[in-house]
């Protein structure tokens, strides 16, 4: 079996982007195949609604195709479509909420101490004991219970793997706001998962 180095993957991706820009739909479809599940997960985690997540998925790739000529390739293709995806997901939320109050600037719960309450060790490989579906449901519920401003930061930084700077730029936040929200999101998720994964 041959191994593919990250550099080869990048070169292949760059070639696919170039071909897509030249109108090669099959090349574009290969890019879609590579990232479709991630964009659907992003839509699902931010909107919390399967129907909206499917719309986000379709609209993200349609917009990506339409805007490919303007993609300057100074970031990874994936980072670029994640930015499109998160904007689509936030637009969905705004449309769903009649008061249009979806805002990432909400300073909700950003001040005050966060004190962990659960100090029990977790079981070794707890996710394997619970099974795939149950683990996924627990994780989806936990992320949905976070305030939107924490959820989006956690999604971009820890789930999608964007850097702190990329996350800040995508969401129009300062680096310190990203770090503060990420910290709170991580500790709150830990407390939620501890209910299921701890020993005893």
């Amino acid at each position, binding site marked *: 079996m041959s191994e593919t180095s990250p550099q080869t993957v990048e070169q292949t991706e760059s070639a696919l982007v170039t071909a*897509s*820009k*030249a*109108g090669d*739909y099959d090349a*574009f*479809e290969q890019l*879609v195949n590579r990232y*479709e*599940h*991630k964009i*659907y*997960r992003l839509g699902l985690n931010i909107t919390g609604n399967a129907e909206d997540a*499917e719309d986000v*998925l*379709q609209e993200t*790739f*349609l917009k990506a*195709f*339409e805007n*490919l*000529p303007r993609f300057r390739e100074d970031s990874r293709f994936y980072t670029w479509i994640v930015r499109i995806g998160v904007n689509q997901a936030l637009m969905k939320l705004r449309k769903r909420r009649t008061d249009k109050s979806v805002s990432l600037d909400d300073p909700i719960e950003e001040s005050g*101490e*966060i*004190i*962990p309450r659960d*100090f*029990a*060790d*977790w079981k070794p490989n707890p*996710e394997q004991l619970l099974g*795939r579906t149950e*683990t*996924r449901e627990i*994780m989806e519920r936990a*992320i949905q219970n976070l305030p939107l401003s924490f959820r989006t930061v*956690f999604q971009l930084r*820890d*789930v999608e*793997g964007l850097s*702190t700077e990329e996350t800040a730029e995508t969401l129009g936040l300062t680096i310190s706001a990203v*770090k503060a929200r*990420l*910290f709170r999101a*991580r*500790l709150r*998720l*830990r407390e939620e*998962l*501890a209910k299921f*994964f701890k020993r005893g």
Partner: protein
Amino acid sequence: MDCQDVFRKISDYLDGDLDAELKRAIELHACGCHHCEVVVDTTRKTIRLFCDGQWFELPVQVRERLHAVLERRCRGRQA
């Protein structure tokens, strides 16, 4: 360094954003404090679980509908 200091710095610690002295102080404290050791370890596990794509699958029908829409709207069109 007390437990509250560790909790405040935990995110930067896990991201490798602390200088060597602060990092060592946290590790030294966590070595002798079971609560902090657990919080650091389980926060790390939490992040790892969420960034692991194996828990997530794209439903087959959702994928089929996506490709049908893209095929109809994009094939044959210049990007």
